[in-house]
C-alpha cells in the first residue's frame, strides 16, 4: 500500500528502481484513482470496473485511432462549408480545409489562416502521431525520463483534444449566423461531420489509452547514469 507512496519521492530523483502499483500487486481504479488488490474486479468506492494495465487494452486505442484516421480523410477531401452569395448567382464556393487556408492566405489573413491551419491540420495530425507513438511505446521498456516524456505527451494530447473541435465550431457558428437568405448563406459541408467524428474518435482513442502502461516498462532496477 505504501509502495506507490514510496515511489513518489523516487520520481524526482530517479535514483532507484521505481515501484509501481502493478509491481506491488495492486490495481488502480481509473475512475477514482484508488488502488485495490489485483484480484479485485470492481472498485468498491466508485463501482467502476477495475482493468489491469495491459497492452491488450491498447487495441481500443488503435481501433479508435484508426476510426479517427479514416474519418480524417474525407474531412480533408470533402468541402468543409459551402458559401452561396446572391443565391448562387455570384457563385457558390465550396472549400475544403486546405483550400480555405489557401484562400485565407491569398486574402492576406495570415493570422486566421494560421489558426485554422493549426487547429485543423497540425493539431489533429500531431494527435494522431502522438497517440500512435504512445500506443506503440507504451509498456515497452523505458527509462524514467522517457516515461516522463510519454506522460507529458499524453497530458498534452488529452488537454488539446477538445480544442481540435474549433474548426467544427467555426463552421457551426458561421452556418448559424450567415443565413442572410438571398444575399449570402453558408452551409456545412460533409467534411464538417467527418472532421467532428474524427476529432471525437481521436479523443476517445486518447481516453482509451491507459496511462498506467507508461509505467509498465520502467526498469526494475535503477540504471546507473
Amino acid at each position: 500500500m505504501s509502495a506507490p507512496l514510496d515511489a513518489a519521492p523516487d520520481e524526482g530523483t530517479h535514483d532507484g528502481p521505481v515501484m509501481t502499483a502493478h509491481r506491488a500487486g495492486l490495481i488502480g481504479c481509473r475512475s477514482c484513482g484508488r488502488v485495490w488488490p489485483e484480484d479485485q474486479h470492481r472498485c468498491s468506492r466508485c463501482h467502476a470496473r477495475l482493468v489491469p494495465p495491459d497492452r491488450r487494452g491498447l487495441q481500443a486505442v488503435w481501433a479508435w485511432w484508426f476510426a479517427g484516421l479514416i474519418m480524417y480523410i474525407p474531412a480533408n477531401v470533402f468541402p468543409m462549408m459551402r458559401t452561396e452569395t446572391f443565391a448562387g448567382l455570384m457563385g457558390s464556393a465550396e472549400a475544403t480545409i486546405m483550400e480555405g487556408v489557401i484562400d485565407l492566405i491569398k486574402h492576406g489573413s495570415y493570422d486566421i489562416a494560421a489558426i485554422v491551419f493549426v487547429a485543423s491540420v497540425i493539431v489533429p495530425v500531431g494527435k494522431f502521431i502522438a497517440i500512435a507513438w504512445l500506443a506503440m511505446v507504451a509498456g515497452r521498456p523505458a527509462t524514467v525520463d522517457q516515461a516522463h516524456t510519454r506522460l507529458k505527451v499524453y497530458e498534452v494530447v488529452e488537454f488539446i483534444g477538445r480544442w481540435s473541435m474549433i474548426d467544427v465550431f467555426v463552421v457551426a457558428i458561421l452556418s448559424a449566423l450567415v443565413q442572410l437568405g438571398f444575399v449570402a448563406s453558408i452551409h456545412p459541408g460533409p467534411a464538417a461531420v467527418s472532421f467532428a467524428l474524427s476529432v471525437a474518435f481521436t479523443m476517445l482513442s486518447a481516453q482509451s489509452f491507459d496511462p498506467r502502461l507508461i509505467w509498465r516498462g520502467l526498469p526494475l532496477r535503477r540504471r546507473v547514469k
Partner: protein
Amino acid sequence: MKPASPVRKTAVRAAQAGVNLIWLVPIIALIVTLGIAWNAYTGRGALIEVEFADATGINPGETVLRFREISVGRVEAVRFTSDLSRVVVEMRVDKDVAQYIDEEASFWIVRPQVSAQGVTRLDTVLTGAFVEGYWDAEVSQPQRHFVGLNRPPLIRSDAPGTWVRLSMETGDGLSEGAPILHRGVQVGRIENIRISDQDDRVLADAFIEAPHDGKLTTATAFWDTSGFSLSLGAQGLSFNVNSLASVLQGGIAFETLVSGGSPLQPGHEFTVQPDEASARNNIFPSDEGEPLRMSLLIGDSVRGLAKGADVQYQGLRVGQVTDLSVSIDDQADDPVLQQRVTIAISPERLGLPAGSTPEDALRFLEQAVADGVRARVASAGFLGTSLMIEMVNIPDADPAAIQTPPDALPVMPTVPGDVEDFRATAQGFIGRIGSLPIEEALQSATDMMNSITALAGSQETQALPGKISETIDEARVAISDVGAMTTELREAGTAANIGRMVDEAAAAAEAVRLAAADVPEMVEEIDAAAARVNEVDFAAISTQAEGILTDLRAMLGSEDAEQLPRNLSDTLQAASGLLNDLRDGNAAGSLNNALDSASTAADEIARSVQELPQLIQRLQATAARADAVLAAYGDRSAFNAETINMMRELRRASEAFGSLARMIERNPRAFILGR
C-alpha cells in the same frame, strides 16, 4: 507476481471480448467512408470536352453547364488544343443527364449580347458566363468530345416548325436572326447566312415556326423587306417601311399568293425576290414544268433589253428573256446583223391546262401567230428605259409562221417595235427641256444681281439710310395718327373693324337712304296737317289749339327739324363718298381722308340721333295735346272727323319717325353698318 496469473487470464479474455467489439468502430468508419467515396466517385458524372474558339468568362470550378437553364454540370478544366488554336473546356456533367449527351448535342457559351434583336442574357453580367448545352431526349451512342458553337443558336432544334433554305442575289441588309414575316407578323427567323459553294448566290436557312409553317407550299413567294424602299413608278412615288426591326436587321416576308403548291419537303429552297412587287410578278405556279424556249430575231436596237426581262402576251407576263445574242441572217441577199433574243415561256401562263408540255405551247402559239400575233420589243416601265418582249395581235400583219429549224429553237416572227416612238417622244421631251431659256433666265438673273450690286454700291444708295430713317419717322407719325383715329373710331362706337365696316357700309347706306326717304314725306305730311289745321279757320278753336299749332310750327320750324334731314343726307353723302373712295381701290392713299370722313360722319350721325328723341317727344306731346283738344269737340262733327284723320296721320307719321328713331337709338352702329 504469482497471484496475478489467473487474474490476468480472465482479464485477457475480457479484453479480447472488448477488442472484438471495439474494432467494429474503425471497420464501420471505413465502410462508411469508402461508401461515401464510392458514391462520390460513381455519382460524379461524365467528363465531356467541348472545343471553343475562346473561353471568355469561363472559370474552371465555377462556370456551370446549363441545360434548359438548369445547372447540370460544371467546368473542371480549360486547356488548349494541341495546336493552341482553340480551347478545350472540360466539363463534368451530372450522371443522370450525361447519357443523353450524344452526337446531336450542341454547346455554346452564353454571354450578354447586344444586337438588333435587343439586349439578351443580361443576367450573365451578374452570374458570369456559362456554357449552355442542348440535346434531345434520345439515348444513343454517347459522345464525349464536341465542337462548341460560336454563338447561341437562335432556334432550338426541338422547336416545332419547318426549316427552308432561301436563296437570294445579295444579302444586303439581312443579318442573322432577321425576322421572317407573314402578313407583318413575325413567324420565324433567318440564320446561317452564307455564300453558296456552287454559284455566288447568298443562301440562308430560315425557320418558320409552327403553326405558320402550314402556310408554306412550293408556290410560296418570299421577298426581301429589308430597310425601306423608295420607288418611282407609274403609280407615283411609293415609300415603304415595314418595321423598325426590318430596317435595322433586315427581314424577309412570304406569302402564298397562288394555290396549287404542294406541301414542302424539309430544306426546300426558295428564291427570295427583291421586293413584293417582283415576288407577285414572278409567281409561276408550275415553275417546275419545262418552259417553251423560242428565239426572236429582232432588227431593232435591243438596248435596254436584259436577261430576265418580261415576255408579255396580251399584257400578261408569260415568260422571260433568257439570253441575248447577235446572229447574222445570211439567207438574205444582204447579210444583216440581227439580235437573237431567247425567251422562255411558261405553258401554264399562256392559259393552257396544267401539265401542258412545251409542244402544246408551241402549237398554241403557232395558231396565235396564224391569227396575227407577233412579237416585238416594247418599252417597259414608267420612263421606258427598259425594254420587254411583247406578243401582240397585229391585225394587218404580213402572213408569217413560227419557223421550226430542226437543230435550233423555234423562231417567232417579229414586227418592228414601238420603241422608236417613245424614243422620239423622249427626245422631244428632252429637247423641250433643253430649249427652255435657262441660259437667258440665268443671264437675266445675273444681270439683276449685278444691277443690285451696283445700286447697293452707289453713293446715293448709301445715303439712303438717312432718308429712310426720316421716312420711317414720318411713317411712324402717320401710323400714330392712324392709331389715334382708329382709337377715336372705336370710342365712337363705330366699327371695331374697319374692314368689316367698309364691307358693310354700302348696305348701311342703302338702309339709311331708304329710312331717310320717308323723312321728307313725313315732314310734308306734318306740314300738310298743320296747314289743314290752319285752314280749319274755326273761331271756336281754343287757345289750346293755337298753342298746339304754335308748338307744331315752332317745332317744325325749328332748326333741329330742318337740319335733321339735311344732316342725314349730308351724312349719307359723306358715307357714300367714303365708300366710293374706299371701293375705288385708292383706299391706301385716301385712308387718312376716309377715316377722317368716317369719323366726321359717325359723329354727325351720333349727334343727329341724339336729337331725334327730343323731336319725337315733342311730336308725341303735340299729338297728345291735339288729341285732347279734339276730343273736346263732338264725336261726329266733320271737323272732328277731319281732325281725327289728321291726327291719325300725324300719329302714324310720328310712329314711323319713332320707329326709325328707336332703331337708330337702339343701335347707332346699325345705322351705318345696315343691321
